[in-house]
């Protein structure tokens, strides 16, 4: 650009940091925001800040929540004997939509990956093990069916298996190389029913 409009450039640069948004899309979004009513832009800005201020992670399961512990952990109707282990909070949303699972969750915060510096110590594995002291008798591993998710599941099934808890893995029925996020609800529901 031969001329510079600072505040516009700043907005474009910040939008371009979002995942899946390139420079071009960021520009389109910025110009769209420029044309939008001030009140609507204000609403968006407030929502952005509010999500940062009010959403934290549950100290028990590390799900995202506005109350601590989260609504799943405190819901008396949920089965406290089963914990479903996932990589990210977004995976919980996907599983909840199937209405097939009535237990509790545990969010690891990622999957094993030496290349990006994720080792068993960086994941919430110690925290998961400490939850086993309660009434838990089954752990369902629902890490993503990526090579990293599989390695994490193998690591967990050995580590937890040694502690005498029943460990099952859902993976079958998910598309090969796929991601839990992309699995449609029917296959995911089936995967829960068929877990071995």
């Amino acid at each position, binding site marked *: 650009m031969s001329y510079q409009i600072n505040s516009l450039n700043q907005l474009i640069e910040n939008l371009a940091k979002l995942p899946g948004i390139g420079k071009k899309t960021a520009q389109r979004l910025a110009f769209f925001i420029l044309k939008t009513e001030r009140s609507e832009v204000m609403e968006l800005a407030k929502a952005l800040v509010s999500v940062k201020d009010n959403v934290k992670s549950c100290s028990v399961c590390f799900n995202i929540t506005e109350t601590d512990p989260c609504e799943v952990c405190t819901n008396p109707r949920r089965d406290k004997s089963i914990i479903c282990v996932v990589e990210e909070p977004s995976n919980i949303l996907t599983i909840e939509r199937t209405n097939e699972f009535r237990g509790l969750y545990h969010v690891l915060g990622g999957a094993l*990956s*030496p*290349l990006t510096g994720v*080792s068993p110590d960086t994941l919430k594995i110690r925290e998961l093990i400490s939850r086993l002291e309660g009434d838990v008798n089954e752990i369902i591993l629902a890490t993503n069916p990526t*090579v990293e998710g599989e*390695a994490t599941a*193998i690591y967990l099934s*050995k580590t937890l298996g040694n502690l005498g808890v029943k460990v099952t893995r859902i993976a079958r029925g998910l598309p*090969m*190389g796929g991601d839990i996020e992309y699995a449609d609800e029917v296959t995911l529901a089936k995967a829960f029913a068929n877990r071995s």
Partner: protein
Amino acid sequence: MFLKSIRLTNFRNQSDVGFEFSPSVNIFVGQNGIGKTNLAEAIYYLCFLKSFRTSSEEFVLQKDKNHFNVTGNFGFEEGGNSEVILIYKKGEGKKISQNHKVVNRFSEFIGSHPCVCLTPDDIQISNGSPSGRRKFIDVVISQTSKIYLDSLIRYNKIIKQKNKLLSEFEPKKIDDFLDPWDEELSSYCFEIIRRRKDFLKKISTELSDFYNKLSGGKEEITVSYESSLEFTETQQDIYNELVRKRRIEKARKSSVFGIHRDDVSFKLSGYAARGFASQGQHKTLILALKLSEINFLKNEMLESPIAIFDDVFSELDSSRIGEFFKLVGDKTQIFVTTTHEFENLETEKRIFRI
């Protein structure tokens, strides 16, 4: 399957050309440097979405242009058509569509348009290093099996993760960390070895037959899989061996056992082709191997593959070439590039003077 027509824009030295092909033999004739291999490369692109001579589209893009296109129309034996459009834009990469549907994962496309390709460089399959032989079998089997291709992709990702662990951490500390990767690795390793051996077994008899038909001799060609692992009967065998040999990998700080280190051995009457065979024997072996590959794909898939022969017949006379085409079979569409006309070649053919 056959390619009915192709259109290229800004592809190497071709600014804008189109061709209508014969379902049997198509011959591109022209002097060196005129652009025959470029056409073969474009046809290959339609089947594999990449080149056989470069991994960078930058080189394929015509100088001073910002995009290239390849469009192909295929007809299937089972009925139906397929229009494949490949567009490369500088800075944006490749986009592919098939029958106007976007192809998101290239790995899902591979095998939908089976293809066998032979170029002068392929002599390395017989006389070069193991990586060329692995690549050869991987390209063939990947076209017949999504599970194979998926396993390969995953296997290679795991090797990268494992090598990172081996290269950066204290050998004493990493057994626990390595373990899940080795276990996962062993499952893909098992699957891949099983399918590679199955492929070699399926082509082994024919390979000898084709070789002797081409050479007029009576030699026994044997082909065997040579794994870097000793015990590969079950996944558990592989896992156990990886664990047993872990100290070697830790000492070398790199993963050295598994399908990425395996090899295939070709023997001519008991002698290893690599090192013993003459230049002529290597060439005959490669031609026989490609014929076996064509038959393998015919047997494993619904559609027969198309076959590309780039500049590989310069030493054969027309009657030998005619016999070779007969061995390929008339169900397989053939593309040939050559600098000299094949005088008196009796095969039904269409000639394109480039």
